[in-house]
């Protein structure tokens, strides 16, 4: 783990934050994933947080209102993501994120409005109970669109109904 930290230090870059400040960051080679605990999830965000810490992976973990943000080198983040999913596969969802966590360029405090991604989590969250249900009861369905009925058949049916009146 300490070896990894040294590697990170040697890859410092200097990223402008748009408010006159700069961040020394190694973000170039890091990724961010958001763990979303869907409705009905068997673990709480606190339990998620503890679980992530106990993995002892060299990643940054931030507790959020819907789960946690994970930031770090791809191998470690993906390992954490895969382990977390196993906790409750049909209720835990993972979202990609482009900005590193807490980046002032996308932060509500700095810019006034909430970042666009926040509205999306809010909205997609509402669909998750149905998604979870479908994942719990998997099945394959027909993908081809049903064909339109021939006009003759359509006319026949109309006539049939009319005649019954």
């Amino acid at each position, binding site marked *: 783990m300490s070896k990894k930290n040294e590697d990170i230090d040697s890859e410092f870059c200097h990223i402008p934050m*748009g408010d006159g400040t700069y961040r020394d960051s190694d973000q170039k080679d890091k990724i961010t994933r958001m763990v979303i605990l869907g409705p009905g999830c068997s673990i709480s965000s606190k339990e998620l947080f503890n679980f992530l810490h106990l993995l002892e992976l060299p990643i940054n973990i931030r507790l959020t209102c819907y789960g946690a943000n994970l930031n770090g080198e791809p191998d470690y983040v993906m390992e954490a993501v895969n382990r977390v999913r196993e906790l409750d596969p049909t209720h835990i969802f993972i979202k990609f994120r482009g900005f590193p966590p807490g980046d002032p360029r996308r932060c509500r405090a700095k810019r*006034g409005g*909430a970042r666009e991604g926040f*509205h999306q989590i*809010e909205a997609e969250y509402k669909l998750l109970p149905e998604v979870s249900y479908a994942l719990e009861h998997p099945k394959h369905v027909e993908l081809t669109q049903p064909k339109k009925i021939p006009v003759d058949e359509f006319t026949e049916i109309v006539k049939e109904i009319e005649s019954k009146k």
Partner: protein
Amino acid sequence: MIRIAQLSCGTEYSGVQKEIEKAAETFGAQMVMPDVNLDDIDEAYEKFGLSCASSSLKLMIARAMSLVEGKNEADAVFICTCFRCAEAAIARNEVRRLIQNYTDLPVVTYSFTEKTKASELFIRMEALTTVVSRKSILAREKQEGLTLGIDSGSTTTKVALMENDEIIGTGWVKTGDIIGCANDGIEQALDGTGYKLDDIEAIGTTGYGRITIGKAMGAKLIQEEISVNSKGAVYLANAQKGEATVLDIGGMDNKVITVNNGIPDNFTMGGICAGASGRFLDMTSNRLGVDITELGPLAQQGNYRNAILNSYCIVFGIQDLVTTLAGGASKADAASAACHSVAEQVYEQQLQEIDVREPLIQVGGTSLIAGLVDAVHDILGGIDVIVPEYSQYIGSIGAAMLVSGLKDTDIDDSKRFK
């Protein structure tokens, strides 16, 4: 710190967000995004009633509604969308109207391309911050006391002396040495009035040379020409209430300003191609061998359809003129075609970018060329065009009028600029 609410679509993806923020910061303002939550977005835009397909425009509408409903606060509003997007142009104008109808917030609108730089936004941000920080000054509707206005333009320097809401003296000098011309203009304006420079209670300056002259003369008001000219125009045309458009075809650049209750809310400035400037008419009258004052009446006698002039470029424009005259066109037809050509290009390059509101008040030296005023009227589909008396002195009158509100205050712009 002045807080300017940004209502926009496409600024980030066009790479111009930083330029907008830079321009605002230059004038001591900060851009803010009004905060709205997801449920408010759909509700707001359904309430507004404009069915935009683009969600960023829905967000723009929701942000506008939150300002109107007082859920978010700001001192001014900057509305901007991508140039050439029809959907956004409709939303931009309707959102502007919404803000103007239901709030007192000053608004400026703009359509940008990826080439838009902070410097192009400076005059807009300056005008916007002026409207916020000098609202009481701009609210003035009449002139009081004895004040003098100087408009140092690119071609001519205009001076107006006003006393108790009347113009009592004017000066008109071709611009050369900035200070020298201003002094000559002042002398002309004072001539016959019985007043001396020392009698004047306050001086206001505008135009390109405003800072140089303003500092030298201790002007209490030094102001960009967008605010001053629009104020002068609605004052002279007696259109201080409601909407209007001010058109100033200048010697070097053209300004189109829309105003709402006397306060400018949008404008375009152009000046890339001299074929659309007053200078082209000046050169045309030279070539035709008539004085510039005779060009207008001459044009009114001609028919522009008999002479083809439509070049964007002043050099090619004059070549066209030579060819046309050689081909047998009359001087009157050529004069008419020159006026028509300038009006057409002002329309194509500028008036199309702006939501023209009636009445159109045409000002500046070129407004005295009757043929040009007729051409503008025709090209805009017969819109009502007003040319007020003293229209050629517009900036100087606006400055004299506005500075009369400062004569008894501590405000002194000549000390503001280093």
